[in-house]
Structure formats: structure tokens, C-alpha cells
């Protein structure tokens, strides 16, 4: 299984394979056939049963799943698979889910080809192939990378944060997970947290990036919950301020085991740091 992933990860640097990937992504059958060059069909589908997700998505909906409508479906289906945070950090699980979304006509394969500057995947693919024919492969590699990012996070380039920040269904799952965990401790309304994460995506990305790599102390539930309680209570949306608070927690944690204190203590500590 991982051998297939290893080979698939490499194709963004391979012109011929990138063209094959983009051409296949214009058509459901071709795309499935192409991905199944890398994985055994039985094995990849056995990773998780996502057939319960039956809501056909528009391209816009796929890029921004709705927290009131799509999130509960996603959560319930994955819960029924005993999906854990370790599973949610595993690229193979998300490849399996992406493939099932396409097989079951929930999304079109070209939905995966959106980039920040252009959200129409089909147009991105056609334009990238056209430019490549003219000898310009920059867009080809960008779109090839985008497809892999939306499918499993393209972790060869971005590490695990690619999973948490680039795969629409993974982003949704992690927002639900964090929301439920934080809400359980702090009693912050779930809707408030969903809206905060969705209307402040750069802050969500910053939080995830710190938690998963550069400052894992933020991931300690007592610290994370104290931070979010403070952020929500003080209505802090400015990313610069958000980053600064996280930086101060990092420094404070060098001599103080904030994770050993409850979230209320940590909220007070953060207040004293910011004052």
C-alpha cells in the first residue's frame, strides 16, 4: 500500500505522469483506472467504508463543506468506522475516501484540481495541458500537485499539515474534532467554534500548523482549550495577534508546564501574558 503512495507522491516531478494524471482527471473512469495503477482496488477500498456519504456535491460545496449540513454526515459515517485522530492523519485513508467520493459520483475527479487563485478545476486542467503542449510545464506541475494535495495532502512537500490544511474532507473532520473536544471542556457552543474556524481560515491553519509541527505544546488539550476560550471570549480574529499569543504561550511553556493546569488556569495565564 505504501509503495503505491511512494510512487504516486513522485509524479508531480514527472512531466509524462503529470500529463496522464491531468488527462485522466477529466473523466471518472480514467481517473479511477489511473489511481488503481498505484493501489490494489480491494485494499484501498478496505481502508474505510465511505459509501454512506450520498450527498452529491457541487464544486463549490466540495471546496467548502457546510458545517451544518455536510459536517454531521461526514462525522457520523467516519465515527461508524471507528475513525481516530491517527486515521485522520493517515494519507491512505484520505485517498480511499477521495476515490470512493469519485466512484460514487459524489464529486467529479477534476474538482480536485482547484488552486487558491482559480477554483474551477476543469478549466485549470485544460489550461495546464494547453500550456504544457506549448512547452510551459509550470501550470502542469501546479495542477498535478493540487490534485494530490486535495486527495491526500501531498505530504511529500508539506508534511502532515498538508492533510489538515489541503484535503477538504480532512479539514472538515479536523474542525469537527477540534470543535467537539474544545466544546466538551470549555462549554463554548459548537456553532461558535465552527463559525470561528470557517471565517478565520488563516487562524485555523496557524493553529493546526503549530499543533502538528512547530509548537506541539499548543496541542496539549488544556493549553489548546484555554487558548480558544481566550480567543473566542476576546473576539480575536486578527491573525497577527493570534500568532503573537501562540508565540507567548511557547515562551511561557519553556519554564511552566501549562499542560498540567486546567484550561481556566491557562486562560488566566494567557490574559496575564497579553495584558
Amino acid at each position: 500500500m505504501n509503495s503505491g503512495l511512494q510512487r504516486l507522491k513522485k509524479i508531480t516531478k514527472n512531466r509524462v505522469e503529470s500529463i496522464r494524471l491531468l488527462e485522466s482527471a477529466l473523466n471518472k473512469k480514467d481517473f479511477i483506472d489511473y489511481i488503481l495503477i498505484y493501489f490494489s482496488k480491494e485494499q484501498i477500498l478496505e481502508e474505510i467504508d465511505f459509501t454512506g456519504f450520498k450527498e452529491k456535491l457541487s464544486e463549490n460545496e466540495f471546496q467548502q463543506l457546510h458545517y451544518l449540513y455536510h459536517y454531521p454526515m461526514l462525522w457520523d459515517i467516519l465515527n461508524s468506522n471507528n475513525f481516530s485522530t491517527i486515521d485522520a492523519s493517515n494519507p491512505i485513508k484520505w485517498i480511499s475516501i477521495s476515490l470512493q467520493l469519485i466512484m460514487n459520483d459524489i464529486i467529479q475527479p477534476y474538482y480536485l484540481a482547484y488552486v487558491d487563485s482559480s477554483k474551477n478545476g476543469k478549466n485549470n486542467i485544460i489550461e495546464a495541458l494547453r500550456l504544457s503542449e506549448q512547452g510551459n510545464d509550470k501550470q502542469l506541475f501546479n495542477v498535478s500537485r493540487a490534485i494530490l494535495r486535495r486527495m491526500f495532502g501531498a505530504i511529500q512537500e508539506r508534511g502532515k499539515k498538508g492533510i489538515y490544511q489541503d484535503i477538504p474532507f480532512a479539514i472538515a473532520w479536523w474542525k469537527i474534532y477540534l470543535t467537539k473536544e474544545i466544546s466538551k471542556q470549555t462549554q463554548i457552543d459548537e456553532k461558535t467554534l465552527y463559525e470561528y474556524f470557517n471565517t478565520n481560515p488563516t487562524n485555523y491553519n496557524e493553529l493546526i500548523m503549530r499543533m502538528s509541527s512547530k509548537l506541539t505544546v499548543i496541542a496539549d488539550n488544556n493549553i489548546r482549550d484555554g487558548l480558544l476560550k481566550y480567543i473566542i471570549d476576546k473576539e480575536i480574529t486578527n491573525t497577527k495577534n493570534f500568532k503573537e499569543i501562540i508565540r507567548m504561550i511557547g515562551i511561557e511553556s519553556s519554564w511552566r508546564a501549562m499542560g498540567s493546569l486546567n484550561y481556566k488556569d491557562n486562560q488566566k495565564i494567557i490574559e496575564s501574558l497579553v495584558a
Partner: protein
Amino acid sequence: MSQITSSYSFPILEEDKFDYNEVAIYEVNQVESDNKLNYIVFEHKLTGNNLISQLLKSNEAKFITTIVLKSSMYRETTDNILEHISPTHIKQKILLKTTFETQSFFSAIVYIGEDKEIILNSSKMGLDEFWDGTTIELKKGAILARDGWRELENTASDLLTIKKDDVLEYGFDVSVISEEGGRFIANVESSLYDKIKLLPKNDSHLRSIVIHMLCVGFMNLAKYYKDDDSDLTNFKGIKLELKNKNIKTWEDDEFNPNQVACYFLKHNIKLEDDNE
């Protein structure tokens, strides 16, 4: 002359730091856990009469362990007490996650009383004289003593050390040592060692040699530790993983060392069609 220091300038008990006298020792050891495989037990012990032991006795300090599983964003700090031997000596239960990823642990003693200023006195507090007369501000959560980061090694290849052996005439032999939780040691004949040292870590030939080494290691594990592997705490994670996957362990007669060696490295084996 007394002086008030900044909040993080206070004595800390840790290796290679000399804030406390020589009698003061903070030790954390991973100990047996009654053959239960979903957790490990850390034994925390503070030796000596000092500021920290006094704070522990007055319930103003506690033993903690932080558990980190970096790539799944899991980080939690526990202060549970499995066994209270004395205020300065406890055993703590640490739940393990089922994963191949290395789990990291950080143990410490932290201050949990209300924020307060105290004037340090070396003879009463077991401190170096340097601190005499200094006023410090102790804040809730301050780390008073710390153990270094430690890891639970879960994959078999992590537990293999390859060593050059100038005496060995050809090939390699693999032994199991039980020190520090246990490990496979592969002693390798010098010319082979020099060759494999140059191979990239993902080289398929190196992988096959490593699988062979692990296979021999597991054979010896079954041979010598089938009935009692209590010293091999590093292998606990592997045993847990095998049991969860319904694969026989070295405790079982049907244990298959080759299968297990391949199982733990299969994600690294390069297939023929990888050679594009």
C-alpha cells in the same frame, strides 16, 4: 542582599544542572505493567530533603507526564497516580496509543500551589549556596524538576543497532540485549559493514539485509525470551501491535519470525515495479 528574580529564574532539578545539592535526585523509570499491553508505568522518585520534596509533602507540587504523538496532534498531560508509595515516590499509568509512530514522553514535577514569593535558604531547601537569600516568585505550573524527553520505540527497525565487528569473518550475527528496555544488536563483519554504511537508507538491498537481521533477532527473541520478556519493555509496543492484528508473538509456539520481520518493514520494501 536579597533580590527578586524574573519569574523563570528559579532553581530547577535536572541532569547537569547544579541548583540543588548532590543528594537531590529526580529519577523516572519505565517499569513493568502487569502484562497489560495498552499502557506503560512510569515510576517517579525524588530523593533528598529539599524545596521540591517539601512542596510535594504539602501538596503544592505534583508529578506529571506529557505524552506526545506529534503527527496526529495528540498531546496530553497526566498527573494520575497508579500507586502512591510516598509523597516523593509514585507510580504513574500512561495509556499508549496503538500506532507505529514513536510516542514521546516528558516527565516533571510541577508547582501547583497559588503564586507566591519565597526566600531561598540552601541549608533548609537542599539548594546550592548560590541561591541563599534570593527571593523567587513561584507561579502555578512552574517546572521544578524535569526528566528529559523519552520515547517508546514501537517499530522493530528502531530497535535494531548495527555494529561493525572486526572479529567476525563473514556475514553477521544478531543478539538480543535486555539493557535499557532491550534491543537487537547486529554484529556485522567489517567489509559488509563498510558496504552497507554507504547505502542510502531506502536502498532495497539494505532493506533485505535488515529484514534478514530482524528475522534472526526475532528467532532469538523467541528462543531466549519466550517465557519471560519482562525486561524487554521496548518491545511492548510491538507485542501490542501484533496482538491487535492477531499475529502470533514470541510467546506463542506458532510465532513466525520471518512474517513479523517482514511485517514491520513492509512499508519500506521497494518493489520491482518501483524502479522506474
